[in-house]
């Protein structure tokens, strides 16, 4: 198992790349030659990547390149899919996520996830946010109410739902629902938040709110976000990883990727010449 020590550098696939100025970023998640298979089909191919603590990492790439697969590997959501298995190393805080000792529910508690389509439970707003804490043993109503308020405030949702906490969450707008899902994920106090195209089902205004929310959460949480929207990646992330056909082509500080990509493929993709 890999042990994290001191300062980690961001690796891109070519070892000859010049080092980006990320010397003091600590890796939260580290992948080394990490592959994910659906039966025979290798959807993620020998990816080596560090996701640094407290930063926003964007994963971009054309459809079907394995972005979601990589993201879902981090909280082992792929376990639900029959025939899905992994090779190589994927570690959270230096602990192998696919190791024999790992407690999957404890892992998922540390790694929250926000899905492409808002997916609140058909319960009240309150019960949605309180779901995680309740699962993890919080019983006292006052404590729960406190958690709900704090999470909703963090998700910039509180003002809109404070008077309708006991209405069904499915009555909220799409953007509100997505922020509710973020609040729900935050309520279990994860260290890491995975977001798989969190704004692709939303209108520009709702998207804007989610983006500023991500900006606010930066520093407190490590965030990994998959997006098809290049501007979004440029706006919200510190670090961008570009994937193509299951392989990691390039990962670097976001400004670098968008101004001075090292790979021709990356340049072609971000300038929209294919995809």
């Amino acid at each position, binding site marked *: 198992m890999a042990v994290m020590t001191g300062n980690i550098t961001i690796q891109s696939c070519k070892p000859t790349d010049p080092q980006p100025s990320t010397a003091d970023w600590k890796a939260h998640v580290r992948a080394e030659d990490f592959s994910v298979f659906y039966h025979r089909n290798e959807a993620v191919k020998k990816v080596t990547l560090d996701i640094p603590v407290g930063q926003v990492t964007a994963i971009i790439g054309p459809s079907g390149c394995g972005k979601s697969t990589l993201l879902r590997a981090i909280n082992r*959501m792929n376990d639900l899919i*029959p025939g899905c298995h992994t090779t190589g190393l994927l570690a959270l805080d230096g602990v192998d996520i696919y190791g024999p000792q790992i407690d999957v529910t404890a892992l998922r508690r540390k790694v*929250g996830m926000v899905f492409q389509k808002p*997916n609140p*439970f058909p319960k009240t707003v309150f019960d949605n946010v309180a779901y995680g804490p309740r699962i993890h043993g919080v019983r006292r109503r006052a404590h729960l109410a406190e958690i709900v308020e704090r999470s909703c405030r963090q998700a910039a949702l509180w003002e809109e739902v404070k008077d309708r906490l006991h209405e*069904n969450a499915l*009555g909220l707008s799409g953007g509100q629902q997505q922020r509710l899902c973020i609040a729900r994920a935050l309520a*279990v106090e994860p260290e890491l938040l995975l977001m798989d195209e969190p704004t692709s089902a939303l209108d520009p205004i709702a998207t804007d709110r989610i983006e500023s929310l991500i900006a606010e959460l930066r520093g407190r949480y490590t965030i990994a976000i998959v997006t098809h929207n290049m501007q979004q990646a440029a706006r919200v992330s510190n670090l961008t990883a570009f994937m193509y056909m299951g392989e990691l082509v390039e990962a670097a500080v976001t400004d670098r990727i968008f101004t001075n990509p090292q790979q021709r493929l990356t340049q072609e993709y971000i300038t929209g010449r294919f995809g």
Partner: protein
Amino acid sequence: MQLASRKLIDRSFTGLSVFSIVLVAGALVIILTPIVGRGMGAVFFRGTVEHRQVQLDLFGHGRGEDIAAEVAAAEEARRQVYVLIAEFEQELADSIRARRQYAEAMEEVKAGLRELLGPFPGETPVLYRERYGQTRWDRAQIKLQRVLYAETYDYSDPTQMGQKVLTPRVEEFAGTSLEPLFTILPARLEEMLRPRPTFYWRFFTNTATADYSFGGIWPDILGTFYLTFWTILFAVPMGIISAIYLVEYAREGNRIVVLVRTCINTLAGVPSIVFGLFGLAFFINTLRVSEGRSVLAGSLTLALLILPLVIRSAEEAIRAVPHTYKEASLSLGAGQWRTIVRVILPAALPGVLTGVVISMGRAAGETAPIIFTAAVSVARPMGLWSGLSEPTHALPWSVYTLCTEHKTVDEIRHVQYGMVFTLVLMVLLLNSVAILLRARISRKLRG
């Protein structure tokens, strides 16, 4: 394809669909109309003074003084009949010739009168059925005809079956002192029986005399309720757990799962009488859950019968729950079991519930499985818990025995129809409850 021919096919298909819908609706109306119409006859009818007296004597309903007054008035009206009979009997006693001529007819007339008005003054028959006259005006009309006409059969034409011939008794008894009876009786029958529109809602809550001639069908309703209750209690948890296993735990293609599925499908196709025999052989003779027929054995058998129905509907309902709910729950660190209990089952509830209520209707209406395992015609009244090891009445069974084994079926047709009506009503009620519940829960889920 040509546009014209496509249109033609389109149109004929529409026609066919409309036709089949009309056919189904028609069949439903044709089936339900007599059931409802005649079934209501058990509750709404013109009840005679005898009905009110039965209600008072057997069940303690009604005001004693009122009924006593009515009975007195009726007896006053009937007295003339009994005086005529007594006089004529005296005549017969005095004359051998008259006796030879009229004795037999006289007995018939007296028997008819007993059925119509109850026992003669001074008589106290043993059977309940013979202690009272006709309680319903419609039945009384029929009985009146039996008194007014002699029924004989004409066999003179050997090529045909015997023809029924009705001869008026007035002619038969012409010239005797009994002759006025046959004009007085129809003219004053209303005073003698005092019919009055009656709403006998106690039909549903009264117990019955052993042969159902008087009273209601409460024991049958209660028995059906108990059987259904226990059946659901046995079948639903099992069914839901099986459905959860099949959807959430079983790996598709696993041999055992394939086997289980085949078993469920086969079970669904087994004729219900086979379940009845199986219940007798297994639950009563092998496991000895009870001495003989019992609610326990019957409801276990019924539970087996409806199990595939419950499993299938629950399975479908659970499968219909969006995958995203499960993902969301798991991603928050919930285990699989908690995800099922807290998210999947609540979301599947409307569908599961619908399946449960439909199987309830099925369990309530099945006859064959309880013939050997639970139902009897004469049972003690009992409680939900204490009656578990006792045999019971049940609506479908009673409907069946009343029309196959009852001595005087014609007399209690209205009870039979009342039972059928109640059974249909119960099922309809269950279904509407299901629809309401389903609507309420889905509205809550949808927000």
